[in-house]
């Protein structure tokens, strides 16, 4: 922008000086040719009569020099270098035809012309110097300068206006594009549809193709996670069903024990695979957090309804307590996954025929607390349990990957909250997710 204005200013000045200089030259040439004509006509009037130079200055020689500014005219006539008549101070120093000089304080332009007169017995050199003040010339020059300056300023103003216009139409569009890229949500990878100037079409279309590729690779990675989980767990589930069915038919206790360990190991790897991929999915979604308007109570109630049949198999009851409504804007898939992990944990560690309480509170910030009535967390490890693959000392005989609490923590942190582990005074563990 500044470069453009600077460039316009330099161009305007250049224009001013070029035009003015040219005008000076033209005006000077005009005055010079008039001076020359005047001097020539004076010389033409000179004659030799009886060996004496006679010069009757013609009226026309002065009349052509008259100007609107009433310029004064000086002249000097010299014969063979000796002053004959006119203005004595007017001299001409060298062989140049035209010279500028100062006479009585005002600038003059002067010309020298000479003619050789040939008489009966002699030849003589007659020189005439004519000078004219430059008032009319400088008046003309002033006028031209003023007009040129106006032209320069006009050019400058126009150039600045043009540069503003160019900026707002091209750079301004670029700015708009930048803003719309910046303002986009993390999930918004749709192409830009707004019309742009033709010069920017290649930029926008390459941006759009980048968006397209990004979108594709993002959705591929989400699909990949789901597909990988499915591919790993399906054969495991089949093996597990066979092992379980076989276990029911085998009578020898040592074989049964072996089958039982097998089922346990399959469960462990299936669960670990599932949670690892859950964890990958959660990391992915947390990076591109998509917030929906949800009610945490609805979300928890749905989840509890869904998990109740499994809890019943263990004679556990799931209870939803707390406020009737807890509106929040978050990713329902992530939050549900986190709470499911917490309920899974509670179902693993809660004793049979006990209850698991899920409490939703809305103030001062939305929170979900899951409490069981098991033996609680080992108090020495309460701070390290959310570390990846870290399992409590009392969890050795329970199937798990050590990722459940990590997943819950990641989800809470992605929503700007955290996780809190504590033991209830009357026994049992409580985990609180805050958002």
């Amino acid at each position: 922008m500044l470069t453009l204005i600077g460039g316009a200013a330099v161009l305007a000045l250049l224009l001013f000086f070029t035009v003015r200089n040219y005008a000076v030259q033209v005006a000077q040439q005009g005055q010079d040719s008039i001076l020359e004509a005047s001097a020539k006509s004076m010389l033409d009037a000179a004659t030799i009569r009886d060996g004496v130079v006679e010069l009757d200055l013609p009226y026309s020689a002065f009349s052509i020099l008259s100007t609107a500014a009433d310029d004064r005219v000086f002249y000097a006539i010299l014969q063979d270098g000796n002053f004959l008549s006119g203005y004595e101070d007017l001299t001409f120093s060298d062989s140049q035809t035209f010279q500028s000089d100062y006479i009585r304080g005002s600038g003059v332009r002067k010309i020298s012309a000479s003619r050789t007169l040939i008489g009966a017995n002699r030849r003589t050199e007659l020189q005439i110097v004519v000078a004219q003040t430059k008032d009319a010339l400088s008046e003309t020059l002033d006028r031209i300068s003023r007009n040129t300056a106006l032209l320069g300023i006009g050019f400058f103003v126009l150039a600045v206006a043009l540069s503003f216009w160019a900026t707002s139409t091209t750079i301004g569009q670029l700015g708009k594009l930048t803003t719309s890229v910046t303002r986009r949500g993390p999930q918004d990878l749709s192409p830009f549809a707004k019309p742009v100037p033709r010069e920017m079409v290649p930029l926008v279309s390459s941006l759009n193709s980048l968006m397209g590729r990004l979108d594709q690779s993002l959705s591929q990675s989400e699909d990949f996670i789901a597909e990988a989980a499915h591919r790993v767990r399906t054969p495991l589930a089949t093996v597990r069903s066979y092992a379980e069915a076989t276990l029911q038919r085998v009578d020898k206790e040592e074989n049964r024990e072996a089958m039982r360990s097998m089922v346990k190991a399959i469960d462990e790897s299936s669960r670990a695979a599932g949670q690892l991929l859950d964890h990958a999915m959660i990391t992915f979604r947390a990076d591109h957090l998509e917030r929906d308007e949800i009610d945490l109570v609805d979300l928890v109630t749905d989840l509890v309804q869904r998990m109740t049949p499994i809890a019943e198999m263990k004679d556990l009851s799931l209870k939803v307590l707390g406020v009737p409504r807890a509106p929040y804007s978050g990713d329902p898939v992530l939050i549900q996954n986190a709470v499911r992990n917490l309920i899974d944990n509670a179902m693993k560690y809660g004793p049979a025929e006990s209850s698991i309480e899920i409490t939703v509170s809305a103030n001062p910030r939305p929170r979900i607390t899951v409490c069981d009535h098991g033996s609680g967390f080992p108090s020495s490890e309460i701070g390290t349990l959310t570390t990846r693959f870290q399992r409590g000392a009392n969890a050795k005989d329970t199937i798990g990957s050590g990722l459940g609490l990590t997943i819950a923590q990641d989800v809470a942190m992605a929503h700007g909250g955290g996780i809190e582990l504590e033991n209830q005074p009357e026994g049992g563990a409580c985990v609180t997710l805050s958002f």
Partner: protein
Amino acid sequence: MKFLLIEDNRDLASAIISRMRLDGHVIDHAEKLSDAAAFVETGEYDLILLDIMLPDGDGRDFLQQHRASDLDTPVIVLTARSQVSDRIGSLDLGADDYVTKPFDHAELEARCRAVLRRKSGNSKTTVEIGGVVFDPVAGHLTVGGEAVTMRNRELRLLELFLNAPGQIFPKTKLADRLFSYDEDVSENAIEVYIARLRKHLSASNLRIITLRGLGYRLDRDE
């Protein structure tokens, strides 16, 4: 119970079938939607297990047609992906519940039980034996005309005994059926459940006999 399984993955299907038969259920298997339609026309089922992706069509279309007919057999959908939209779609179309493949058999069993219990109002599944009336689906036990409240595990234990009267069940076998493999079960825990069941049945003609070193057996007093 009589189930219809509509699933094209043979490994998965035969695993489900062998596990269901173990629980004393009858199960028919259809690999295609056309087979399934024929099965539904000819047999009466208590529950249908339906896969979504089938070689000759979408399971959801079958579900829609099924709901349009006057059969109200409950349907549990087996979905391959854990996509939330998939689940909601099938519930909207009238599925009673869904399980996400791969699933534990325990989860499938739990969901079957829950769905059947919800729908038990219009089915007749009661067993009358030795002075007790037992509805395994609804989970009701009536002894001498009085209703008894039972927990889920007590109910499943009684079901095991009633499905095979006279058979001897070793403690470990009972433990494997009642508890999941990640639970640390002591033999004492089984004794607790046996004791409770005996108490429930005390007013009836049914007796659970302890056979030292072998296990338990359900007998009927004459």
